[in-house]
């Protein structure tokens, strides 16, 4: 029995599909944020697996380098997303994603 690149890639695809399911099913904005984080984590896992199993001497560890950027982007996403969630809840008093098309307008007519 041997663990290879395909094993890690299929695991990453499973994580990505779970994140997709969460994005489709959930209504709570924080849950949507977490599902998106799950998908970014899946992408990072695939990149690290490629860095290990498809090592190229001309571009060593390219996958790991890009995974660093993906993790940084995920952190930025979590920071801004959390701030937006707090802002949204403050303005609408609801944590649901449904019907959020004109959040600034809702703030303007004083529902916040």
């Amino acid at each position, binding site marked *: 029995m041997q663990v290879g690149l395909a094993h890690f890639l299929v695991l990453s695809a499973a994580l990505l599909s779970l994140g997709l*399911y969460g994005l*489709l099913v959930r209504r709570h904005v924080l849950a949507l944020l*977490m*599902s998106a984080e799950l998908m970014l984590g899946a992408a990072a*896992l695939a990149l690290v697996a490629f*860095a290990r199993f498809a090592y190229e001497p001309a571009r060593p560890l*390219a996958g*790991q380098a890009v995974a660093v950027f993906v*993790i940084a982007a995920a952190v930025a996403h979590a920071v801004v997303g959390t701030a937006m969630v707090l802002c949204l809840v403050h303005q609408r008093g609801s944590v*649901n994603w449904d019907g959020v098309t004109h959040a600034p307008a809702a703030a303007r007519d004083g529902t916040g």
Partner: protein
Amino acid sequence: MMSDPLYVITFYLVGGLLLAAAVAVVTVRDMGQAALALSATFGLSGALYLLLNAEFLFGLQLLLGAGAMALLIAFAARATRRAHGTPDLRRGLRLLAGAVAALALGALGAVLAGARWAASGWPGLGTTTRELAHQLVSRYSAPFGTTALLLLAALVGATLLTREEEVPRAAAAGPGRARRGRGPGARHRRS
């Protein structure tokens, strides 16, 4: 090393726990518990990075993913726990979404498992941290700087978003109300 029984057992154990934690993230009703499951997901994927000889990324994932990010989301879950909300989609639509996700998994799995990658030898680096650091400041220095800029922009944006409306309201309401209204949790509880 890849065929080492210990390696195989560790991979399946960590992978199974990772999938279980990910399922908990997308199904658990309570957002605090979901944030905890997300933290576990990041910690376990960090363990997989260790299996893939990525020690620096393991530390990064543990500190940023399992630590900071999950803490931030748990804080937001606590601050918004009294806000109005409705449960997830009803059962029929949930099944439809599950079918879509399963279809995506099937297509991706079939493509990824069947593909033949240009496999090349692992040079047997002891740890990859040194080589990664070298790459980050030489070949990838431009993306590295851009990432720093992105994080700075995220910091400033988050600060602006959360204190945008507080200034005029605090000025209008006087010092007593301003103190009560500080912080997002206090703000939404009042509305």
